[in-house]
């Protein structure tokens, strides 16, 4: 029987102890020549290693450029992300047009290491930087009847060669329930590994919702809208039996055509078991209390 690479809590603690010991002895610091403080940053809270930057920036689903995950960086070279404005409207007291720089100045910057699980059954561990969506929402003051948030990706025909394709309609649109959007885990990311997002990763600003399949984490956002009805979303529009509005990572509910029970972590040889809510059950399961997750996919 093969060993799974999921680290149990006890193993994790033991490993930390061992690392601490090693560091104290100066073995790790000495032989690997990395400062002690950066050691802790190389893993997520489950003890999973970060995915390397090269993989994160060379394996992207961004249909505005191509349906091929490999060449997005090249195809997105001419995509202009500065200046960038985000229009915030709908059911809010203070509709606004933010330019990106002022948006970033206004809110606290946070760094978060999250697992990203694609609906295609591969995953990564990514160190994001950005702002909490909750902070922005707080600032624009949604009206009492606002229940959902709708997001839209830029469409620039001259800079996005994939937009001419007919595989999915553009603009790409996504949505969250307001309580999901204001959840502490939900980010508007602008950085990966402390570097500004590259175009293929959704520059200059994108959503990150780590307990949902990757397609929810919409890239290159130009519009955020507050609504009272569940907004239409690109993939659910295409096939609502295969892609739901919630799209929570759930190993017990398969994609109708393939299994969601296991996943390939990019950079690892053996598959690993997919975790409920991508390992964020503790933080988010309360959001879905009383909901049948077999139906509300």
């Amino acid at each position, binding site marked *: 029987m*093969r060993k799974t690479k999921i680290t149990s809590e006890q193993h994790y603690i033991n490993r930390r102890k061992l690392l601490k010991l090693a560091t104290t002895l100066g073995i790790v610091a000495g032989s690997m020549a990395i400062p002690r403080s950066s050691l802790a940053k190389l893993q997520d809270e489950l003890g999973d290693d970060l995915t390397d930057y*090269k993989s994160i920036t060379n394996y992207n689903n961004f249909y505005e450029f191509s*349906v091929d995950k490999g060449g997005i960086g090249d195809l997105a070279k001419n995509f202009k992300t500065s200046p960038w404005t985000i229009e915030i409207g709908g059911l809010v007291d203070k509709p606004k047009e933010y330019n990106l720089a002022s948006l970033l100045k206004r809110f606290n910057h946070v760094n978060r290491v999250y697992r990203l699980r694609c609906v295609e059954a591969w995953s990564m561990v990514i160190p994001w930087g950005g702002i909490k969506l909750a902070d922005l929402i707080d600032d624009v003051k949604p009206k009492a009847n606002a229940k959902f948030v709708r997001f839209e990706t830029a469409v620039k025909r001259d800079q996005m060669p994939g937009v001419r394709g007919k595989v999915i309609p553009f603009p790409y649109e996504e949505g969250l329930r307001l309580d999901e959007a204001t959840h502490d885990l939900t980010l508007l990311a602008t950085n990966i590994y402390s570097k500004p997002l590259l175009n293929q990763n959704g520059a200059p600003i994108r959503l990150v919702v780590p307990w949902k399949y990757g397609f929810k984490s919409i890239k290159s956002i130009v519009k955020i809208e507050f609504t009272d009805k569940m907004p239409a979303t690109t993939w659910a529009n295409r096939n609502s039996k295969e892609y739901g509005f919630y799209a929570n990572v759930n190993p017990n509910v398969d994609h109708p055509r393939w*299994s969601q029970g296991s996943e390939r972590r*990019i950079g690892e040889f053996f598959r690993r078991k997919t975790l409920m809510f991508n390992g964020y059950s503790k933080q988010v399961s309360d959001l879905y209390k009383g909901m049948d997750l077999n139906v509300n996919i």
Partner: protein
Amino acid sequence: MGKIHKDTLLRVTAWAIVFVPLLSGIYKVSTGNLSPNPIEDITRLTGFGSISLLSLTLAMRPLSSLTGISSFIKIRKILGLSAFVYALIHLLIFVSLDYGFNPKFLFEATIKKPYVYAGLATLLLMTPRAISSFAKFSKYYGSNKVVIDITVYLSQFFACLHYYWLVKADTTWPIIFILVFVLSIGLRVLAKIQQKRKLVASS
């Protein structure tokens, strides 16, 4: 002379085509051109290689009747057998490298998943013709010619279905292969009808 020349030329071409998927794989590995998900890369490469070669195999007879060059028929064995070998490797990669022989993951990934059954059907339906292509077993083929030929066409059909069912959104290639399938089977049927007419006319 001209005929022998054509035979050789086609044979060399066929052998070259057969090695394209393998060589492109070796090229990608040696130049570091694999994606961050290399197991997916080689799974796709062998799958795409197999369905391409299978489609080519079954296009040879119509091509031969259309052009009047009988040599096309002679390279079917090379193309067809290699399609079979790539399909076999494709399945082996899925079970070993991709799923690490993990029984639980494999069970989840295959049971109730139609694309898996279509893929298995493709391979199984290719098997009789692959075996009977060896001289030792050709007798077996001779007496079951029609049935075995039909299995190969069915195999091509299931290969298309397998591909169509597993792509996420971009169905361009699966549809191209479906069109090739319809075209080759259509031409085959047309040729049969013409043959019958000729027979009727001459009797």
